[in-house]
């Protein structure tokens, strides 16, 4: 695509689309030339300078120069400049410099995804071959630069362990293989470890980030034992306080190269926000297709995996022609071959339109996209700039079009589009006090030092591990995790709970699906879409973790109806008002399938399957904020309501969930969820909880700012332009609920709750040390009926089938 046609073409497509209204149309961001530092000013060794002169005749960008000098001076360094600013060079050049200076040196490259490691491996090998001193070292060692992860063939692993000096891996492999077997297999590597590179460090957040934090602390413990003291280099998307994040992640102080020091070249870029009377999925799909048919390469980010698959199936359905060969779907769950095919296609432009989930936000090399279309707004600044950064790379022109969804939060930003860009960058949340993870990693750390608790390096491992040790020593803590023969196998590094299922057609593996998405997308009898094709789920075999599929040619869609049961385990803090009670609690959320409905493209119900059909419930132990309506308060309100009182609770829940990012700061909407249920006392409660295993404290903000949240809910409801009492999707109407809501009843509830929250300011009561609180809670539970032992997550007693209460 020639210069200056991308923005013009996009503008023309938008203008030519019927009924498309432009909500936001800021000026074009101008081209910015790069700022360079001469190679002669660099401290890199002569061979590398010689290599650079050929590849980068202008020298390095200023921020690259500053970062590399910081690393070479012995500082742990994090670089948080914008996308396509050359961050990979910042860690690869010091890595090669280190090996040039010390031929025995080793470097560890850590990537959050195997696909990223794949991407970087080829580039590192090319660079290694081009730098004379490295090429000499590499000559006798086939695995000098190598990947070592789950996809590495087991027959070559011994050779890799023996030879590798630049090793690319992921946190899972680091935990399960490298740290666990360091003494037998990795001594050489640890003794000579000089640098640890952490790419895309913003991905390490939530439970995954907490696990990685513990893993990196354990890595440092082992390095201390082997006498090495590696420095850390990290790269990050633009987030709030990357320095603090890396310090929490690794336990060492960091120097930060922040976005203000970014000297990279940036192409011209233009943003739009548009809307139309059609459903936003249809608007996005049609616009993306129009742009691709104009010859542009388009990346359309969809809100969910199902939405991405439906984009392609509806293209087929709405057209009398086959879907063009340049259209694809990209998401997690595809096989690595399928993903590589799409990535290559984007690079060589044989694939021009990809409907993707956030999986393509990461820095996998897909060349430069002309236009990014966001179908549904990104709800974090990090996500916004990651997506927008897929276009206008390397000085080329690019465009980004935002299409708001029909949700409370998107409606807010559609009315205030400038606010979308003026939000603060969100903080990255870790929870190193999560007791379950602490105990698991404690057990791993003990085994790694030979089994003696007292020889652990608590200064390196952190205060939280020290606390666990002290509690054990005083006899207050005795958990099964400490007695496992293989403690490393108990850790779910990505926090996915039960792990993944294989999607199989006969004996062929199609992809994978995790347990959270299993009941939503691949329950028995469901129509499952994968890579644009439809399959019928024949069976889900839990023991073997297999989903059996059969190819089916249909435009029908299935929707699961999922019930949710929330059980409070422990109250961490509470605040008692007259009409309501606010609490921050640990809880168990069990989601189970209630029925599945199959609908034709016209919306007619074709078939319904009732019951769970053998689908395992998804269980999530987590933390959240609970708003309890006291019985007299709720009874009085119910008498004043016209419709179903439960619908007002659901209306308030939807508004609170939708508007939570406006009080918490931008956050990924997949990271939290909500529900309405009764508590042990029989009172009704609304829950806002972390949608990650064991919680990370994200929804604790709601406890401290509940009044503000309910006020925003009131503003949203009163300002919504819909006239009917049932409301609309932008306020209280929930597409997942069959029963209609009531604006009048919801407004009554909100007003009463707000009055209760503002009338007084009661004290916050804490239950004491959080670490101890949950330990005491896990005292043995018994079934009331047969006295058999049960766990906190059981819905029914396995011995007699009695339904267990909260």
């Amino acid at each position, binding site marked *: 695509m020639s210069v200056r046609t991308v923005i013009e073409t996009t503008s023309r497509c938008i203008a030519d689309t019927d009924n498309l209204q432009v909500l936001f149309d800021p000026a074009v961001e101008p081209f910015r030339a790069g700022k360079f530092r001469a190679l002669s000013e660099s401290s890199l060794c002569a061979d590398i300078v010689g290599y650079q002169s050929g590849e980068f005749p202008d020298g390095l960008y200023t921020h690259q120069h500053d970062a590399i000098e910081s690393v070479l001076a012995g500082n742990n360094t994090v670089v948080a400049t914008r996308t396509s600013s050359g961050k990979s060079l910042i860690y690869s050049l010091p890595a090669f410099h280190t090996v040039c200076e010390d031929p025995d040196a080793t470097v560890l490259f850590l990537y959050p995804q195997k696909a990223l490691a794949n991407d970087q491996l080829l580039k590192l090998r090319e660079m290694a071959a081009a730098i004379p001193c490295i090429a000499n070292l590499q000559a006798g060692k086939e695995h000098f630069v190598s990947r070592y992860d789950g996809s590495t063939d087991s027959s070559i692993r011994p050779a890799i362990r023996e030879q590798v000096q630049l090793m690319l891996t992921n946190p899972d492999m680091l935990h399960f293989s490298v740290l666990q077997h360091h003494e037998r297999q990795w001594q050489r590597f640890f003794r000579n470890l000089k640098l640890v590179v952490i790419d895309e460090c913003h991905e390490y957040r939530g439970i995954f980030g907490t696990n990685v934090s513990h893993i990196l602390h354990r890595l440092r413990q082992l390095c201390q034992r082997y006498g090495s003291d590696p420095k850390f280099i990290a790269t990050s998307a633009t987030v709030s306080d990357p320095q603090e994040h890396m310090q929490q992640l690794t336990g060492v102080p960091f120097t930060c190269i922040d976005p203000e020091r970014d000297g990279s070249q940036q192409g011209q870029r233009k943003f739009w926000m548009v809307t139309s009377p059609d459903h936003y999925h249809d608007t996005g799909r049609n616009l993306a297709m129009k742009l691709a048919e104009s010859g542009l390469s388009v990346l359309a980010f969809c809100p969910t995996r199902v939405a991405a698959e439906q984009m392609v199936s509806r293209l087929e359905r709405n057209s009398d022609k086959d879907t063009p060969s340049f259209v694809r779907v990209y998401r997690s769950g595809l096989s690595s071959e399928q993903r590589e095919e799409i990535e290559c296609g984007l690079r060589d432009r044989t694939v021009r339109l990809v409907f993707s989930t956030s999986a393509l936000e990461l820095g996998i090399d897909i060349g430069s996209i002309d236009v990014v279309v966001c179908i549904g707004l990104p709800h974090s600044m990090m996500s916004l700039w990651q997506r927008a950064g897929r276009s206008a790379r390397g000085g080329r022109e690019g465009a980004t079009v935002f299409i708001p969804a029909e949700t409370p939060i998107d409606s807010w930003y559609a009315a205030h589009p400038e606010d979308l860009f003026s939000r603060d960058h969100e903080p990255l949340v870790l929870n190193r006090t999560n007791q379950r993870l602490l105990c698991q990693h404690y057990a791993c750390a003990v085994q790694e030092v030979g089994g003696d608790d007292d020889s652990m390096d608590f200064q390196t491992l952190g205060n939280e591990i020290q606390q666990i040790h002290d509690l054990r020593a005083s006899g207050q803590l005795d958990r099964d995790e400490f007695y496992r023969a293989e403690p490393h196998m108990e850790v779910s590094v990505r926090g996915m709970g039960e792990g993944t299922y294989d999607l199989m057609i006969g004996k062929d593996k199609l992809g994978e699906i995790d347990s959270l998405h299993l009941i939503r997308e691949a329950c028995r009898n469901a129509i499952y879409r994968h890579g644009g094709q439809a399959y019928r789920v*024949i069976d889900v075999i839990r023991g073997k973790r297999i989903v059996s599929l059969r190819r089916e040619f249909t435009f029908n869609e299935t929707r699961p109806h999922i019930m949710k049961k929330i059980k409070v385990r422990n109250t961490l803090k509470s605040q008692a008002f007259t009409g309501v009670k606010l609490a921050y609690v640990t809880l168990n959320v069990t989601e189970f399938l209630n029925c599945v409905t199959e609908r034709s493209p016209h919306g007619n119900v074709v078939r319904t399957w009732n019951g*769970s059909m*053998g689908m395992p419930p998804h269980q999530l132990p987590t933390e959240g904020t609970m708003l309890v309506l006291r019985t007299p308060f709720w009874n009085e309100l119910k008498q004043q309501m016209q419709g179903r009182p439960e619908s007002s609770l659901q209306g308030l829940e939807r508004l609170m969930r939708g508007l939570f990012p406006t009080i918490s700061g931008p956050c990924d909407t997949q990271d939290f969820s909500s529900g309405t249920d009764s508590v042990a006392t029989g009172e009704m409660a609304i829950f806002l909880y972390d949608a990650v295993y064991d919680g990370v404290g994200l929804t604790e903000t709601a406890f401290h700012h509940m009044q503000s949240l309910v006020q925003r809910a009131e503003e949203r409801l009163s300002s919504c332009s819909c006239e009917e009492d049932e409301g609309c999707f932008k306020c209280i109407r929930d597409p997942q609920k069959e029963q209609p809501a009531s604006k009048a009843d919801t407004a009554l509830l909100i007003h009463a709750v707000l009055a209760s929250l503002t009338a007084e300011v009661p004290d916050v009561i804490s239950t004491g040390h959080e670490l101890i609180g949950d330990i005491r809670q896990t005292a043995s539970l018994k079934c009331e009926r047969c006295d058999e032992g049960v766990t906190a997550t059981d819905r029914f007693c*396995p*011995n007699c089938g009695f339904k267990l209460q909260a």
Partner: protein
Amino acid sequence: MTTVLADPTMSDIYPFPAIRATQIARMSEQNIGDFKLTAGMAEQMSEDDIGLLIANCGSMERIHEKLLDLAATDYSATFVVVMQSKKMLAVWYNAQARSLGERPVPESKVPNFWVSGCCVFTTPEGLSGLSDSGQLSSPVAGILMVDPYLSTHNCRVIRKGRYTITHDRPQFVLNFRTDHVEAGVLPPLIFFAVPPAKSLNTKPAESVYGLATWWYADGKRLRVGEPPTVS
């Protein structure tokens, strides 16, 4: 004039508890209460996806005897008795034929389903034919699986040489159950087994039949038919 029949209410389907048993804990076999198949119980079993396993029945003959007593009950709804195999179906068919003075027939001549009082006897493969036949003139009050060693759920696939034929017997049962929802309630799934519950592998069956849990009852203390009136 067209007569529109009102949907049967649950109390019409379950005028009295035709199946009663002592409920027990699986491992200790302690008595934990009574099970009575009432409308409320059927609703609860449907809502919570609970199956009833009446184990420790002692023998197939005893199960047969109890189900014949049930069939002879004057009941407004129908119990569908699903036998584990065609062979078992043939044995019971011929036993009933003999009791009526009729000649027994070879297995190949045994019908896929037959009606006896308030019970219909069939196999999982016969269920779809039963639905289509129009012979179910009243709502289904329960699906009674005669599965002596709780093994029917193991038959999902048949391999014949190079070919794999999917023959999902439990799925036939689930489909039938879905097709006969009354007043929003799935007909209860009740299993009859010979050995005690603690000797049966109940977990795999639980997930295959779409159940969240089992209730267990003692087959030796099973009562069927109209409850005696206490004077």
